[in-house]
Each structure stands twice: as C-alpha cells, then as structure tokens.
C-alpha cells in the first residue's frame, strides 16, 4: 500500500533562517506531488506541484522554492524565512484525479 511521510511535525525557526521540509512517498511510482500551505483556520493554498523528477510548477510567487530530486521525494525550501511563512505545510500525492489527494501529516511551522 502507498504511504506518505512528511517531517518534521513541528518546527520553530527564527526570521531569516533557512528552511527545508521533506516529503517522501512509498508504494507507488511517478506520483504527482504537491505542497500546500494552510494558514490557521483557513483553506488550503497550493504552493507547488510536480509531475516528474525535476519538474516543478509554482502557483504562487513567494519566498519559497521546491525541488524533486528523486521520483518519490519532494522538498520545500527557503533561504530566508519571513514571519508570513508561518503556517501548516502539507505535502500530498495523487496518482489519478479520481482517487483524490493523499496528504501527509503536515509540518506546523512557526517563524519567530
């Protein structure tokens, strides 16, 4: 069966520090991968998606970047965090649209 792993679960980082969040998927090949951000009590905002290794599409211009160095690995990064980067970051994968997205357990990032 397919599983998705996302870490860390919580993170407190100072303003200006770098960020690296990692997501891996097991049990499938060539998945579509997504990074979402959820502000407190709000909906889900798509940040990046990838349909293959090295292929990254950005939905929202921001202080973040994404990379997909391996088929089942998706990384969200920032060189210098801003206070506004705080939020709940969710990685998701999908093989086919009708199966829906499967989300990881998320990373709660607080920038102080």
């Amino acid at each position, binding site marked *: 069966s397919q599983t998705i792993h996302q870490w860390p679960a919580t993170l407190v980082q100072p303003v200006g520090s770098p960020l690296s969040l990692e997501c891996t998927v097991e049990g499938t090949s060539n998945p579509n991968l997504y990074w979402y951000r959820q502000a407190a009590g709000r*909906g*889900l905002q798509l940040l990046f*998606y990838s349909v293959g290794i090295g292929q990254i599409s950005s939905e929202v211009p921001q202080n973040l970047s994404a990379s997909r160095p391996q088929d089942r690995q998706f990384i969200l990064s920032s060189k210098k965090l801003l206070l506004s980067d705080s939020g709940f970051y*969710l990685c998701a994968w999908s093989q086919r*649209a*009708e199966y829906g997205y499967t*989300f*990881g*357990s998320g990373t709660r990032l607080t920038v102080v």
Partner: protein
Amino acid sequence: GQQVMQIPQYQHVQEGEDFTTYCNSSTTLSNIQWYKQRPGGHPVFLIQLVKSGEVKKQKRLTFQFGEAKKNSSLHITATQTTDVGTYFCAATYYGQNFVFGPGTRLSVLP
C-alpha cells in the same frame, strides 16, 4: 484564478441534528471532491463527484453535484461527535489543478 466558495463558514449543531455544507462556483466544474480534516489533523479524501446531478452516499453522509455542475453539497444525517472537523470541497476546472474551498468548520455538542 478560479475561486470556490463554501457556506457556512462555521456550524454548531447538537448531536443528532443534521448538517449541510454547500460549495459554489461561478463557472462550470469538471469534478468536485470532498475532504474532512479533523482538528489538528490533515485533510482526508472522502469522495469525488463527476456527473451532473450525481448523488453518492457513505453511511450518514450524502454528497450531491448540482445539475449545472456549479455547486455541490455535503449532508450529514444525525451528527455524531466523531463528525467534528472542517469539511473542504475541492473543484477542478477541466485539466487544471484542484482548487480548495475555505472549508466549513463543524462543531457537534454532545
């Protein structure tokens, strides 16, 4: 970009009462999906609707896609405390990525 609206934003019900959340779009949708996010958790896929007027049921949950494919609803019969959480619709517009609605947060009072 495309936007999907959900109403209500919050709903407080007494256990045993029914609950409905609505998802609306100004343009015709291709597919719509529904997700549930428990407090402190991550969204979990519930169902996908594709056809105009489609109705699907999962135990006490009934999902409906409007005839014009511009709106959808999720109805829960006889709510239980386990139904607590935020319900999101996610809509796609023919080949584009799914756009999530802002969600409806359901509280169930025992």
